[in-house]
């Protein structure tokens, strides 16, 4: 009873709350980092150095007027933010934050579940998230959101192909689709897959930027051309849901990249006995630290790079990333056959 019901529920509650809190603080971090990159101070008023800004933002968004345009498709308009948010959250079910640990005299795994198609589950759930964006643009019954959503969905479908192909080469290395087994495989092969699969790693990260609609691929939100993007007609909490979904997806991409390429919860050089003093740091700390590096790079890239033009974006996706990913896959296969 306790093992099958109470502990999983507790884990779900903890992971969901931690995610939502870190999402709100990601927004603050982004504003701060971009402000520093531009020699500004960023939010400073609410709390010391603005650390209570997320609370103020949340309150503001919740008490704002919630407007549904008269000509909008009401049902779809209501469903779209939910469809964006839910896939971004349920993906956390298979992300391993750490191995088994002893907690209050009980073996507890630091992941909600470990299914044998874990990675495939993440990819397929993420592919459903596209509907939130398409439907938001369609249901608003307004031309800018519609244009933005068409762009967004074309972009997401294109980059999904490249990202999935890189995942296949990682799966070939690990010989498993389960997230926990992929980390274990990196432990036993004494190598992070970022070094074994450098090309896949780079393509995955670029594709991840595009999949989360982040700069330099934030086409759907190009303010100069599309006023506000697919969520132009949304206000209040519904707008906030899209916003939260974007940041939750960033955390998902960072966590997946950490698990697949940076050895998940493993400490650096897990096979070097000389460094075993590092073991006193709990495993989940390594996981969070590595993910944080990715999140920081996301923001850093946004502060640094200008936005791609739409045709350049499509050309990069179809004519550079996908062929490279396929070539990487073929080479991985050949090497695997030769070495076995």
């Amino acid at each position, binding site marked *: 009873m306790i093992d099958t019901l109470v502990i999983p529920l507790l884990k779900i509650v903890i992971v969901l709350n931690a995610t939502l809190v870190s999402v709100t603080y990601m927004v603050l971090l982004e504003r701060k980092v971009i402000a520093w990159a531009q020699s500004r101070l960023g939010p400073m008023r609410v709390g010391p150095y603005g650390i209570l800004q997320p609370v103020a933002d949340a309150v503001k968004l919740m008490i704002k007027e919630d407007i549904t345009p008269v000509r909008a498709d009401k049902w779809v308009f209501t469903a779209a933010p939910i469809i964006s948010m839910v896939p971004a959250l349920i993906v956390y079910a298979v992300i391993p934050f750490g191995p088994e640990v002893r907690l209050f005299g009980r073996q507890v795994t630091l992941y909600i579940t470990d299914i044998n*198609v874990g990675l495939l589950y993440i990819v397929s759930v993420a*592919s459903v998230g596209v509907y939130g964006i398409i439907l938001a643009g369609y249901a608003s019954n307004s031309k800018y959101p519609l244009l933005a959503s068409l762009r967004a969905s074309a972009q997401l479908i294109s980059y999904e192909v490249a990202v999935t192909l890189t995942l296949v080469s990682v799966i070939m290395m690990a010989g498993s689709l389960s997230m926990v087994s992929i980390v274990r495989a990196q432990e036993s092969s004494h190598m992070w897959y970022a070094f074994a699969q450098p090309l896949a790693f780079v393509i995955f990260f670029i594709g991840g930027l595009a999949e989360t609609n982040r700069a330099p691929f934030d086409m759907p939100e190009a303010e100069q051309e599309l006023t506000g993007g697919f969520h132009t007609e949304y206000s209040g909490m519904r707008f906030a849901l899209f916003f939260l979904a974007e940041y939750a997806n960033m955390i998902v991409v960072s966590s997946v990249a950490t698990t697949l390429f940076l050895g998940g919860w493993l400490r650096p050089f897990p096979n070097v006995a000389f460094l075993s003093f590092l073991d006193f740091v709990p495993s989940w700390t390594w996981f969070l630290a590595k993910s944080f590096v990715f999140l920081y790079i996301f923001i850093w890239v946004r502060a640094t790079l200008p936005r791609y033009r739409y045709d350049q974006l499509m050309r990069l996706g179809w004519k550079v990333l996908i062929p490279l990913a396929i070539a990487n896959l073929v080479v991985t296969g050949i090497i695997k056959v030769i070495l076995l």
Partner: protein
Amino acid sequence: MAQAIAFYFIAACILGFAVLVVSTKDTVHSVLFLVLDFLFVAALYVLLGAEFLAAIQVLVYAGGIVVLYLFVVMLVNLKRPPEAHSDPHRRTMLGFLLAAAVMVEVGAIAVYGFSQPAMVAVPGAATPVTGNTAQIGWLLYTSYLIPFEIASMLLLVAMIGAIVLAKREL
């Protein structure tokens, strides 16, 4: 017991959404019901212990193909004037005949199924690998290699056909 309840609930949802797909006036809503339908089919696969198939169902059908349907439906203006319903070319009789034929077929299968003794699950060919995904891969590349290759050939033909249609002066 719980399995049976889950099965009948999912089956009812699949049928209900399938009816909504063809009966809804708004084409976009119809496509959305199709997505829901596919998601429930994936749930049925999970119930049968075929997680790999379920994930692929969501990835390929719900997440891939139907997005393209949505594109087409949103870009082509399908809001026709009401007189389109009295389409002279509509073959109502043919439709009813086909529906009746399918009903007879389903009925025959049901009657035949109930008249036979309960089927004993035949254990599949022994595979040297364990695990859902690995077994599917093994079977695809041994027992079902030719059907698998033919299916991939068909997809290749469709791809080349699309390219030829799109780029006539290549």
